[in-house]
């Protein structure tokens, strides 16, 4: 017989037994291994999140850590070099760079700076470089004036995209640039540029371009003749005019306007003197 007379464990009560079975059950396992820890973490996080002091502390700590890192020697900017800028602009730029004392490169908002720079009319694009030795370099790409915009009162130079470069008192000094004018002329500056390029052999005879009704161009020549281009595909219409010019030297004649608003129906208006001359010639021939 077995030596099992000793009683190593007291008998459990019904409820103790049930509880011990509950401790072994799957439900309890899931509760303790998953539900309870997750709930606890959520609770703690929520408590910390809602307490003002804790948020303040987190913010302070974050700031102090940032300060420590940002003012490591190689992050500190103590000199700013601006290239490709006139003295006036340099002053203007330094005014919003705000660097009285050495400042960390991490504290500069380069996107903001670039935005500010690009809002300056004369600045085309800009690049901000930092070489980690204390010198920040701002490289400016100046906006190149391509034409002059005249709004009826004031002149200003604009670039190919129609963006203002600088205001002018009058046209003097900028005779090499042609003038555009009219409603919506600035927005279609690119098209004006292409038209002038196409007119290249006669470029010196172009006085300016006038945007009519915000949809089409009139090219005004130095002799007062007006080339009326259509809204749709003005380039091909222009090409037709140039073709006529090459064969018949149309533009050298005393014409008042060359109407290509409907390309299939070109209308050439000549001066009354020239018209009379033509009539006499026709009468003579007949």
């Amino acid at each position, binding site marked *: *017989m*077995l*030596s*099992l*007379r*000793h*009683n*190593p*464990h*007291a*008998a*459990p009560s*019904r409820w*103790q*037994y*049930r509880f*011990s*079975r*509950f401790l*072994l*059950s*799957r439900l309890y396992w899931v509760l303790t291994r998953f539900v309870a820890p997750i709930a606890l973490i959520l609770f703690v996080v929520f408590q910390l999140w809602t307490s003002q002091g804790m948020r303040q502390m987190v913010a302070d700590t974050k700031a102090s850590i940032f300060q420590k890192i940002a003012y490591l020697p190689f992050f500190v900017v103590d000199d700013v070099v601006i290239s490709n800028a006139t003295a006036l602009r340099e002053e203007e730029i330094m005014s919003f760079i705000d660097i009285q004392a050495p400042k960390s490169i991490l504290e500069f908002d380069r996107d903001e700076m670039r935005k500010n720079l690009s809002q300056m009319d004369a600045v085309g694009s800009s690049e901000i470089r930092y070489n980690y030795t204390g010198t920040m370099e701002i490289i400016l790409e100046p906006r190149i004036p391509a034409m002059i915009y005249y709004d009826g009162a004031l002149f200003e130079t604009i670039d190919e995209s129609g963006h203002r470069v600088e205001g002018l008192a009058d046209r003097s000094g900028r005779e090499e640039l042609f003038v555009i004018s009219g409603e919506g002329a600035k927005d279609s500056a690119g098209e004006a540029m292409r038209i002038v390029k196409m007119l290249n052999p006669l470029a010196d005879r172009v006085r300016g371009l006038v945007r009519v009704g915000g949809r089409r161009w009139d090219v005004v020549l130095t002799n007062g003749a007006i080339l009326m281009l259509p809204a749709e595909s003005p380039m091909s219409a222009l090409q037709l005019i140039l073709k006529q010019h090459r064969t018949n030297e149309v533009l050298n004649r005393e014409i008042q306007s060359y109407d290509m608003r409907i390309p299939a129906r070109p209308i050439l208006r000549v001066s009354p003197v020239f018209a009379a001359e033509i009539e006499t010639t026709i009468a003579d021939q007949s």
Partner: protein
Amino acid sequence: MIENARHKREMRIRRDSVIKRSPIVMLDIGSSKIAAMIVQFMAPENMEQAGHSFRILASLEMVSQGVRYGEVATMVQFQKDIMRILQNVQRAAGIKIDYAAVCFSGGRPESFGATGEVAVESGEVTENDIARAMLACEFPILPDGREFIHALPINFTLDHNTGLDDPRGQIGARLAVDMHLLAVDSSTVHNLEQAIRSTDIELVSLTTSPFMTGLAVLTEDEMKRGAAVIDFGAMTTSVSVFYAGQLMYVKNIRIGGYHVTSDISQALGISFQMAERLKNLHGGVEATAQDDRETIDLSDGSETEFQERRTITRTELIGIIRPRLEEIFEEVLSLLTEAGLDEIPSQRFVVAGGASQIAGLEGLAERFLRQRVRMGRTIKLAGASAQQTTAGFGAVSGLAVHTAKPKDEMWDFVNPNSGRSLLNMRSIFSWFKENW
């Protein structure tokens, strides 16, 4: 019979449905101890690979105080015992167990034979034919308070072909079945069921421990050619006889190791615990000359220094133990003769059970039974620790083997509800015939 079969069939269906998904606790309710073993059964496909059908997750033996003669004597105490061992074994395994297979040794098991014969309906033997053959058996009328715990088909005869294990699918005209019916006290069964129910655990099997011990300790060969297992329990000594792979006979006598201890305690005037210790440490059955010189100290620390220290020789102790064991063997022998087991060709005897560990017991057994006697050790337990193959775990091991692959029982074939469903099928068929 039918009511009982319905209940048994429910348990079997439950066993089939839970065996793959959850571990089951095996319980052997003994008079001195309860053994529990949590077993995870494997799916048949994994069985091939692993080479065994189950894995032991935990096992435990604990003292049983509410059971006498293998029957519940004190319900409250028994419930405490069962809750204690279930709580501890579940803790040891680290999982909650919801199903139990239980075996017990008491309830005065009694074996009956019965034979039934029917004509095979369709030429080929079907389960339905087997069921009808079983129902054709002349069941013994049981007195009130007795019920069948097992109804095992042990032999099928198809025409003149006998000794069939499984006649399903064979061609024949007349099918006869020999049944082994095992009856026990209903109160024992109901008390056990009640106690198990109170622990929130569902039963998947309820059987008798001599049968289970036999399954655990006998080799396949012994079971086929015939063998008797003598299971020495604390208060009952059970005999189970196997032949042709089937259980043939179960009976027990209500004397066991407890009575040996009690004899020692009375004869020497010492406490029960002390007597138990003497039996375990110095007990034996054959006195030799050396045993006359070997003295055993009986002091238990309560004597004063003026009292003489009490000692006995080992011969004296053997003299107390032996008559009781002889009595047991005489009873066993008369049981075997009464059952008519002389007819079994091979008469192997295997001694098992907790009380079989008394030194030299097999020698005494051989003298009485005039046969070679083998000490039963659990053999069908792959991956078991040494502790799990001791005599005390024989029945639970057998229970695990049995639960893994239960023997066919009558209620596997006879469906108490089948009458109604068959009627339904027939009415559906006739409806089709009439309307199409």
